[in-house]
């Protein structure tokens, strides 16, 4: 009832204070997540060094074979986008939910959207760092040209992040407990990276596998990254890739929001 008695300017000032607090809260949470990320070496390794290790191994195998390197570098970049967002968020959110951290945070004044923004920001930072490292390694170590179209590179990475981050959150809703999280995540992640042309040109795969890959987002992300980094086809040549990624992103966001649970499954 006291809310009704507030003068309009006071109410507006309160709203402003809340929005400032939102940014501060999200930023604080983001910094905490970064700190914790580096304190957990195994998580840091699997989320961070694995794609770089793959790049080094395949780079060594395909050394001097430029055509193969031009497939593998954007392929690993696409895989890195998926692992840092989809896999990492599915695992993280399952863990936070089942361990009760989500519920505990939900009982505090921290705006829950600011909390989730901090967690997503942490994942996206890993994406940006990995794509940057892969791009630099592709040019400096493997002798590829620098990306042909930076705008397209940024656009596809951003769209890939939105798509795979929301799908990762959506997948976490289906995972019943943290022990089974790696199995669920890898049951999706491994087949998808194999059929989507991370390690070879997906257009050379058998028809059925190619058809499945065409329906999934990762192949289109890799096509877009390949156009941006290697062929210079840019954005215009990849309208279909943009469309498929956008559709998956919409589906991912709807599923991520719908099934969201703050409470552990066991209760």
């Amino acid at each position, binding site marked *: 009832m006291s809310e009704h008695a507030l003068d309009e300017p006071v109410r507006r000032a309160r709203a402003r204070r809340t929005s400032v607090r939102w940014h501060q*809260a999200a930023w*604080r949470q983001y910094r*905490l997540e970064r700190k914790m990320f580096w304190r957990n070496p195994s998580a840091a390794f699997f989320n961070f060094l694995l794609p770089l290790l793959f790049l080094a191994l395949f780079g060594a195998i395909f050394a001097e074979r430029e055509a193969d390197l031009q497939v593998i570098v954007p392929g690993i970049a696409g895989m890195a986008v998926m692992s840092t967002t989809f896999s990492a968020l599915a695992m993280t959110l399952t863990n936070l939910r089942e*361990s009760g951290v989500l519920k505990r945070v939900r*009982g505090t*004044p921290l705006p829950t959207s600011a909390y989730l923004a901090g967690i997503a920001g942490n994942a996206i930072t890993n994406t940006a760092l990995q794509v940057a490292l892969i791009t630099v390694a592709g040019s400096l170590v493997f002798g590829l040209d620098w990306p042909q179209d930076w705008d397209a590179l940024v656009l596809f990475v951003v769209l890939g992040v939105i798509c795979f981050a929301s799908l990762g959150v959506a997948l976490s809703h289906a995972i019943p407990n943290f022990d089974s999280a790696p199995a669920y995540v890898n049951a999706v992640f491994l087949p998808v990276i194999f059929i989507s042309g991370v390690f070879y040109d997906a257009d050379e795969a058998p028809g059925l596998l190619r058809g499945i890959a065409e329906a999934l987002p990762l192949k289109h992300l890799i096509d877009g990254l390949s156009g941006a980094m290697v062929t210079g086809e840019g954005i215009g040549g990849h309208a279909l890739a943009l469309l498929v990624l956008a559709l998956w992103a919409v589906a991912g966001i709807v599923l991520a929001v719908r099934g969201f649970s703050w409470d552990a499954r066991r209760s």
Partner: protein
Amino acid sequence: MNTDVAIEVEELRKDYGAQRAVRGISFSVRRGEIFGLLGPNGAGKTTTVEILEGYRERTAGRVAVLGMDPGPRPLALRERIGIVLQSSGLYPHLTVREAVSHWAGFFHAPRDVEETIALSGLEAAAGRRTITLSGGQQRRLDFALALVGDPELVFLDEPTTGFDPAARRQAWETVRSLQELGKTVLLTTHYLDEAQALADRVAIIKDGAILAEGAPGDLGSTARRYRVAWRDAAGAVHERETDDPTALLHELTGEALARGDSVHELSVTQPSLEDVYLELTAEAAE
């Protein structure tokens, strides 16, 4: 709205599908009071508390927590309550001090971080990562995180379940210190001695209904009868309940004296709150 009342619950109901978890309970908690919801597992204690904390929607009834409806989880309410859940995880790679300090940042007017750590008895562990804490220490950290916002009202859901006796005593001291700070505490427990030791008033809850309510001492006296037990000359043990044992004792001792014998293994006991609790919850189970 009565400002002396921290929590008011009227005819609260909660159904999970066909299951009726809470069946129209009413109680109120005064400011500065430690109120205990005592009952066996599955009685509806946690459901009730989680409705008051804003975690669950109620099916029917009226609820006011610090004068607000917790249903829409108003920010103004979350600023003023502290919650210790039955079990809740922590970030394993933060130190105690980092966790308390981060939590303090959620609130407009938090308590001092070091003071909160001291109040919770965690000074010695302040620099340790939470993953290395013992069960009792993690529970203290739960307290610290619930207290760092300087709440007026603290919810404690089964705060000592799984504790060894020493850790329970320490947790009880912390709860008592909350009352000394002027906080209101709503405590759930299935331990009778805990309710007796801590609560100013207790509601015994079973199958989603309140069976009895009052100060722990009064609850015992409402059903206060005497139990007289003895062994007769033939060696059989007898036990009888009575409102006034005077006549019975006179009879027993008179008979024994007449035989030139004595009354063997004579005892006269009064039921404790525990007997009342067991009696009430057992009746409800039938």
